[in-house]
């Protein structure tokens, strides 16, 4: 076991932490040490207990057994207040910002800069934030409203919030899950800059590439226990995956020839406005055939969200048409579209995909609750619902002590798996999957990818929207690149290199990027 890290003294130590939830031991005798100036990556399957451990360090949860030491002194009370005082800052898996307030207000919340009692000093708060953002290279505008910022910027605000409270130990819980690869690279640069200035970081991610790129030390949890520790020098993606899951994982999907059938989804000259009434989708034309996977590649925020919402009936298009299986569904209600056999894995699972206070059972039939066998007439059939939920949990390996616990008690990745399970087990003609593997561990990604390919082989048309170019490349039969709300190119997978696709996604045109393999369409 390597002890050096960056060689600094131990700033944070957890000794033999055990935490139980009803029916689950989330952390089982876990010990951890963080040295000054190092980045410790925490890896583990969905539900391995990573967030739980971090919440204990941050004082949100109280451990059942074990002790925590900050710079050698024990942490007495389990409260975020105490942890913040002792220099621990945390950026949560799901952000904790107030959208209607400005960056400065969010950052100073609970630590307001005042000019005499009761008077906020906005100007000074703004200056302090600018100073911080200069010092650490975290670009934000203190006066911007949170609601107007993209996720990458919101993330920076969360980090600044922690730094503003003088945190020198930063806990980042899956900060890159919602970022574009470019933003993730920026974030990792920032993390490096922070550690150079003496901060220490615990970093949770499911992306092995990031772990290898940025970590000094790697700790792996499985089923609540520490199963090993390594360094990027000693590890490979495959070895890390095996350590996490306990078996070897296929990091590449096996995808046979496609046998495309009739056109299932046909989008013509679609225009859609976003919440601010700006045109987010400008004249999109798309076709997806039965038995093929069309991947939409693009940097987040180029109209993918609005496009998917228009296809699923969640947003009325401005003009153009959407036909699904021969039916004109332009501007149709979500249920009409869903009843045509369209499943949708939403991008924002917390907001759209689940009712977090509901048990898994109700969440498993969120869309089909009114149909037999889940309801006869007006009366719901609890036994049928329960059976269905049990089956989903079993088949898709959703880790939970029971199907009756609320969805909020599932780990982030397991919530996503529940949604995927629900959507995949419906009668399907068209599957619209937006970021289907966001926040999911490598083992489950393998499983979900195989399921997507299986659906395609069964003759389902699949529209895959993903910010991960790797995911697009490994699954898609054809790739459409979206930029500024328009499809700038539609090619067969393999016709363009990763780099060329990257250029297209960044707004360059095809002429400037001559194809390496000018092969014609395989179909």
């Amino acid at each position, binding site marked *: 076991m390597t002890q050096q890290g960056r060689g600094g003294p131990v700033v944070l130590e957890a000794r033999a932490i055990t935490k*139980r*939830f*009803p*029916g*689950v*031991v*989330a*952390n*089982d005798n876990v010990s951890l040490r963080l040295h000054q100036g190092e980045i410790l990556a925490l890896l583990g399957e969905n*539900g*391995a*207990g990573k967030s739980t451990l971090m919440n204990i360090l941050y004082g949100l949860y109280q451990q059942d057994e074990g002790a925590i030491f900050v710079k050698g002194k024990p942490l007495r009370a389990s409260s975020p207040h105490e942890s913040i005082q002792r220099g621990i800052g945390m950026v949560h898996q799901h952000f904790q910002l107030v959208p209607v307030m400005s960056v400065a207000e969010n950052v100073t919340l609970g630590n307001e800069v005042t000019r005499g009692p009761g008077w906020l000093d906005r100007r000074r708060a703004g200056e302090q934030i600018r100073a911080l953002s200069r010092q650490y290279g975290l670009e934000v505008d203190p006066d911007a409203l949170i609601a107007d910022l993209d996720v990458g910027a919101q993330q920076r605000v969360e980090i600044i919030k922690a730094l503003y409270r003088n945190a020198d130990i930063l806990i980042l819980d899956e900060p890159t899950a919602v970022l574009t690869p470019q933003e993730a690279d920026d974030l990792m640069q920032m993390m490096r800059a922070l550690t150079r200035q003496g901060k220490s970081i615990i970093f949770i991610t499911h992306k092995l590439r990031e772990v290898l790129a940025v970590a000094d030390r790697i700790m792996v949890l499985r*089923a*609540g226990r520490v199963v090993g520790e390594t360094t990027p020098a000693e590890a490979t993606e495959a070895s890390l995956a095996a350590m996490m899951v306990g078996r070897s994982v296929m990091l590449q999907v096996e995808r046979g020839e496609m046998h495309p059938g009739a056109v299932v989804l046909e989008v013509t000259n679609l225009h859609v406005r976003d919440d601010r009434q700006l045109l987010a989708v400008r004249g999109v034309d798309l076709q997806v055939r039965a038995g093929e996977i069309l991947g939409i590649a693009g940097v987040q925020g180029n109209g993918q969200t609005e496009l998917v919402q228009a296809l*699923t009936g*969640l947003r009325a298009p401005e003009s153009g048409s959407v036909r699904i299986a021969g039916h004109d569904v332009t501007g149709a*209600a*979500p*249920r009409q579209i*869903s009843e045509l056999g369209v499943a*949708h894995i*939403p991008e924002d699972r917390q*907001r*759209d*995909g*689940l*009712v*977090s*206070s*509901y048990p898994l059972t*109700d969440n498993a039939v*969120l*869309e089909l*609750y*009114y149909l037999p066998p889940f*309801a006869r007439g*007006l*009366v*719901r059939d*609890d036994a049928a619902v329960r059976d269905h939920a049990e089956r989903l949990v079993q088949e898709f390996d959703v*880790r*939970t*002590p029971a199907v009756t616990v*609320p969805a*909020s008690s599932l*780990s982030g990745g*397991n919530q996503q798996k529940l949604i995927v399970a629900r959507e995949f087990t419906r009668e399907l003609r068209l599957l619209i999957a937006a970021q289907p593997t966001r926040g999911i561990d490598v083992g489950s990604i393998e499983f979900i990818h195989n399921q997507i390919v299986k659906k395609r082989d069964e003759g389902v048309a699949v529209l895959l929207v993903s910010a991960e170019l790797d995911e697009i490349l490994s699954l898609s039969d054809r790739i459409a690149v979206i930029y500024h709300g328009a499809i700038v190119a539609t090619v067969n997978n393999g016709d363009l290199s990763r780099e060329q696709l990257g250029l297209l996604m960044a707004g360059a045109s095809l002429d400037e990027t001559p194809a390496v393999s000018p092969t014609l369409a395989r179909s």
Partner: protein
Amino acid sequence: MAQAVEGPAPSPGPAGFREYYARYAPYLVPVFAVFTALVVGALMIGLTGGDWLAAYIGLWEGSFGTPVAIANTVVRATPFIIAGLAVAVAFKSGLFNIGAEGQLYAGSVCVVLVGTLLQLPPVFHIPVGIIAGAIGGAAWASIAGFLKARTGAHEVINTIMLNYIAIRLTDWLIKSKTPYLLGDPADPSSARTMYIAETMRLPGFRVSDTIVLHLGILIAFGLVFLVAWLLNRTTIGFELRTVGSNPSAARYAGMSVPRTIVLAMACAGALAGIGGAGEVMGVRYALSTDFFSGLGFDAIAVALLARANPIGIIFSGLLWGGLLTGARLMQVRAGLSIDVIKIVQALIIMFVAADQIVRFIYRIPQRSSAEETMISRGWGGG
């Protein structure tokens, strides 16, 4: 996950009681709140030189101490239970229905109309009266629901406004003399409507000179179970609760959020209207200008105390009725102002709403954040 262990997590040794307490005490917060309010009330009576023990004995005897007292309490509690359901149904749907008062009046006006204009045998007249109340209340509440669904106008503001309109409108309908609308030409100074037909009055036992234990309580019980069934066992209830807990997910799941909001308000209004029908048809046989005097607002407290749980509303409704019926004897026994009971009621509401205090006193763990959002969203959010 973590390895799953059989059954509940093993409790290490003597922590047994504490663990059970931590698990079940949160459900008892309303009970603790009532208890705390009574203790604080006793302190206040004591500090002002009153005899708190005599006062509370009087309160008990006057509310549950004798069969007549119990009958009186039950009659008083009936509208609280029904109107409490009206608030609870809306609350479960994410709506804060401050408008039960107006819906009571709207329903009652319709009841009086069918009670004075129609002539039917009792088997038909009574159901017709109840249905008229339901329709009147539902129509009135739907206005707020419709405004919310269509324009996003907040239901709290709209139901408050509709209360004023309903109360004033009833007032005018009763007091108008040129021509007489609902007012009683035979007794123009009475400030009440004409009496409803004998055939529409709810049957009951006369337990004392002033108290008739009428059928209303059975209707209330029936509605409690109907509402519990509707919310928990039917697809409509599932839609109401889903829209109440997470409107985005409801929309995504194909539910029509606007339609559900209107439906929720209509159900709430129908319940309140039936509450009004019970009072008109069971107690006073006519509607007067100050008929409900805040019953619709007390219903909010009754629903809140029961955490919007229909079965719980039976108990909180009976408690509320009991506090009112017992107040008189408490006043006599301890020489206290009847307002003391209002103070105790206010304390109960305060301790239920500010349950952090109760949790702190009795060391009860935090409620889940899901519950938290529901309550705060009901108040102000969206």
